[in-house]
């Protein structure tokens, strides 16, 4: 229901962002900007070893340094039963190491000092007696029978195996492969990368010794869930914990988990009776906080000779690091990887996954993606391109032949998702038209004739976001639902309180637009409050593109609830029965007498001054939304690249992105989200890599080693849209923040592989650095 009025700037309007007014003036409030009287500073000592026994920790020299207030070790934490904490994946994670260290960068001790420089000085004065053990840096090695056991803390644990998990129908899939004319397979490693929001993680913990009230400013994407976890872990009464996520400098999944630093700072504040600030350095962020991907995948596609896809089989090995701390719905060990059948009508599919411990940082998060959807999307889109080559069919044609047709929605996939709506063909047609696909293929032929390496890559992704319905989707038992609370003030202005919060997505603007659409108050007259658990309704937070699908729906529904009452008040003011009142764009009118009207502002005032006898005064409501289904954004991305055969350097010539995220609330913000996602997708495809040497040293521990795209490398994007509303979402929106990161890596890689195809190159694992591309060219030439 897009606005059909110019007056109310609801859905479909590129309203300029209200949050910008403070940011452009340098007046945001990020966690590091919070300064409290008597505040102390915390620094964390981290392990230099990937795997080592701790024989002893001597903190006496650090303790003696002038300005040091306390040194916290695992032993002290253990006295308060806080040396270990639960993870979202029902494992445990060391808060401060007691027995051994299990990855480089693991938290070993913390110094609390009057000054942050002194706290860091003191770290160098802590003597830890380490006894190095064999580090395990691959999951393959981890699962060998003679591999040392990493989790010796777990009673009876004799190996590094974490889980086996499967989805889909194994027998039906095996049958499909037995009957296939053609089987195409791909082994690919989606390497470890890191979300790297520009602001690192941190907190200011302020536990009042007199009242026991704990107020914690925290870089969190999920403040409510974290409050509950803190209550359960620390045994603090939940009503005395207030988590405030103020302005957040980007999240991308990195700020979903609970990190040891939060726990230690809070414990230190509790023990010392003073506020404690802890702000990570960039290296700490890169080596110890939630990473992404690290999936070794084997995929096979069964096809008929004519290109009809009949089955998909995947086995994958997940490197989970030292503690299984994936932040994802509890019932899904590899997140929503089951979306791997993508946009295709695949009658049979099966995924078998195994997880292993290694001596690497824990905390698999979905770097701008809805729980492992990126890995799934990458695998199917790479497989489809290779299948097209092997069958001699154009990759666009093979996709078209196998798309779920638009008249088959709702469509149940072979792994049990019910896709809400889609028109994959339309999105692809637009992308091909915009990039001039047929022309490009001709240009490619000409370029190849001249010995140039010119490639065109496509990706037609389908995402699954908006978790989710409470029977299936929970984190540590908490249903993945969200609340919204709307209060209309007597003057017709409003405050909306939401359970999700922005890390740059623009909730303060777009959520006001949803309210504006539903009740006709201008967005600038609606304050959107978020990120403060004392002052907003409960909900699971902003990640996995769930804000619009879940909390956006709650916002529409709460506004409708308020509107129902407003209709009654309007009927009272207009002296007609409620059935005779019509509502449109903020105006209530009498059916058949359109000149008799009251505005929402009139009604708001009446709610506090002139309401009907027997009616409860006021105009506000709360609504908790349990989505009936997930939403399934989709699109087609098309990339043209040229590869320099002498250097392996590849440049993006064109990048067209057609997205269908259902109804768009604010087109300007949607496009901004897509730009950002395409850039992060490009970074992942081209340069971002967290890797480890054989000793378990993290390579990628600063922005000199962990490369991020700058404005110079980043491609220019050309966007397009189709709109297929979600039938079950109150405003038809699906979510868009992550589509581009999910869909684009395969498009970039497909383009480079397409360029190298004449040489016989069929795969290069990301990141496609020029060195790797060059090596692939050399290897192919050596084979030729």
């Amino acid at each position, binding site marked *: 229901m897009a606005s059909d009025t110019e007056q109310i700037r609801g859905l479909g309007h590129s309203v*300029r*962002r209200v*949050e*910008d*007014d*403070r*940011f*452009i*003036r*340098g*007046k*945001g*409030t*990020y966690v*590091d*900007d919070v300064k409290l009287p008597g505040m102390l500073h915390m620094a964390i000592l981290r392990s230099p070893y990937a795997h080592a026994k701790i024989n002893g920790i001597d903190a006496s020299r650090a303790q003696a340094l002038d300005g040091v207030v306390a040194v916290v070790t695992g032993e002290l934490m253990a006295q308060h039963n806080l040396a270990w904490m639960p993870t979202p994946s029902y494992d445990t994670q060391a808060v401060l190491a007691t027995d051994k260290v299990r990855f480089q960068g693991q938290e070993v001790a913390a110094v609390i000092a009057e000054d942050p*420089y002194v706290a860091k000085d003191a770290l160098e004065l802590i003597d830890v007696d380490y006894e190095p053990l064999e580090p395990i840096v691959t999951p393959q090695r981890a699962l060998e029978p003679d591999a040392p056991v990493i989790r010796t803390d777990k009673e009876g644990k004799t190996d590094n195996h974490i889980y086996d998990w499967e989805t889909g129908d194994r027998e039906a899939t095996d049958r499909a492969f037995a009957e296939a004319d053609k089987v195409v397979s791909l082994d690919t490693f989606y390497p470890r990368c890191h979300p*790297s*929001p*520009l*602001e*690192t993680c941190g907190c200011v913990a302020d536990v009042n010794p007199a009242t026991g009230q704990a107020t914690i400013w925290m870089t969190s994407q999920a403040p409510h869930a974290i409050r509950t976890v803190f209550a359960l872990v620390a045994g603090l009464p939940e009503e005395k914990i207030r988590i405030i996520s103020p*302005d*957040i*400098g*980007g999240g*991308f999944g990195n700020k979903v988990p609970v990190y040891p630093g939060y726990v230690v700072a809070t414990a230190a504040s509790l023990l010392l009776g003073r506020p404690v600030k802890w*702000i990570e*350095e*960039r*290296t700490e962020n890169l080596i110890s906080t939630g990473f992404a991907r690290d999936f070794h995948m084997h995929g096979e596609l069964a096809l008929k000779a004519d290109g009809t896809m009949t089955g998909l089989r995947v086995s994958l090995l997940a490197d989970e690091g030292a503690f299984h701390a994936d932040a994802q719905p509890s019932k899904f060990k590899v997140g929503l990887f089951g979306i791997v059948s993508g946009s295709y009508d695949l009658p049979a599919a099966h995924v078998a996954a195994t997880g292993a411990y290694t001596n690497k940082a824990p905390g698999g998060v979905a770097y701008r993606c809805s729980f492992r959807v990126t890995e799934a999307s990458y695998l199917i889109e790479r497989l489809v391109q290779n299948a097209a080559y092997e069958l001699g069919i154009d990759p666009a044609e093979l996709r078209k032949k196998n798309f779920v047709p638009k008249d088959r929605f709702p469509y149940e996939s072979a792994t049990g998702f019910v896709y809400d709506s889609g028109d994959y063909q339309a999105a692809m047609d637009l992308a091909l038209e915009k990039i001039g696909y047929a022309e490009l293929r001709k240009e490619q032929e000409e370029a190849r004739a001249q010995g140039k390496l010119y490639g065109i890559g496509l990706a037609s992704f389908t995402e699954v976001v908006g978790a989710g319905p409470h029977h299936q989707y929970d984190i540590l038992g908490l249903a993945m639902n969200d609340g919204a609370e709307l209060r209309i003030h007597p003057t017709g202005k409003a405050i909306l309180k939401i359970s999700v919060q*922005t*890390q*740059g*997505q*623009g909730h303060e603007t777009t959520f006001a637009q949803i309210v504006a659409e539903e009740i006709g108050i201008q967005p600038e007259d609606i304050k959107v409050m978020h990120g403060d658990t004392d002052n907003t309704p409960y909900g699971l937070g902003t990640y996995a593109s769930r804000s619009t699908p879940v909390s956006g729906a709650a916002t529409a529904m709460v506004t409708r609830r308020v509107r129902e009452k407003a209709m009654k008040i309007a009927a009272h003011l207009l002296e007609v029965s409620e059935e005779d009142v019509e509502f449109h764009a903020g105006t209530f009118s009498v059916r058949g007498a359109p000149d008799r009207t009251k505005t929402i502002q009139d009604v708001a005032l009446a709610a506090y001054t002139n309401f009907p006898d027997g009616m409860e005064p006021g105009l506000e409501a709360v609504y908790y939304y349990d989505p009936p289904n997930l939403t399934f954004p989709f699109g087609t991305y098309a990339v043209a690249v040229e590869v320099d055969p002498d250097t392996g350097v590849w440049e993006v010539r064109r990048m067209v992105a057609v997205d269908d995220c259902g109804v768009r609330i604010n087109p*300007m*913000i949607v*496009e*901004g989200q897509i*730009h*950002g*996602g*395409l*850039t*992060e997708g490009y970074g992942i495809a081209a340069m971002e890599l967290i890797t480890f040497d054989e000793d378990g040293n993290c390579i990628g521990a*600063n*922005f*000199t080693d962990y490369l*991020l795209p*700058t*404005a*110079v490398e*980043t491609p*220019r*994007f050309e966007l397009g849209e189709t709109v297929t509303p979600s039938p079950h979402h109150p405003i038809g929106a699906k979510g868009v923040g992550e589509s581009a990161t999910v869909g684009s890596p395969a498009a970039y890689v497909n383009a480079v592989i397409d360029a190298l195809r004449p040489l016989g190159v069929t795969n290069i694992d990301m990141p496609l650095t020029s060195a790797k591309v060059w090596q692939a060219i050399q290897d192919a030439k050596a084979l030729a």
Partner: protein
Amino acid sequence: MEITVTVNGVERTADVEPRLLLVHLIREVFGLTGTHIGCDTSGCGACTVLLDGTPVKSCTMFGVQADGRAITTVEGLMQDGELHPVQAAFKEHHGLQCGYCTPGMMLVGAALIQDNPMPSDDEVRVAISGNICRCTGYMNIVKAIQAAAQASSGATVDA
């Protein structure tokens, strides 16, 4: 040691440790928190300020090195209660999302358009190549800086 720095046009003195980083001088001593810290190693540009009109990364300079010099931070961009053209353009063209890189980006943009009143897309991109943005994908930042160049026609940054 005691230093004197002109900060956004106002002379400030401070007694600081020689090892105090310029970014901490600005944030902790002068209380101007619009300058952010992103990477500690001059890799991201979130801490960019103008030193005598030239962009520098304040995480990689000592505060004492600013003695006797003039600094402009994001808080100094507004003049006479009016937004600098770069500030207005960043909002108008959606050149920011989380806002964390924004002060550094705007200061580099402001310095650029003072030297080059009509920068091309490529020139803007080279100018901001020391500043990482994780949210926007840069296109709207480039657009904003170019729009500010057009709008400014003589607007200057005091330093």
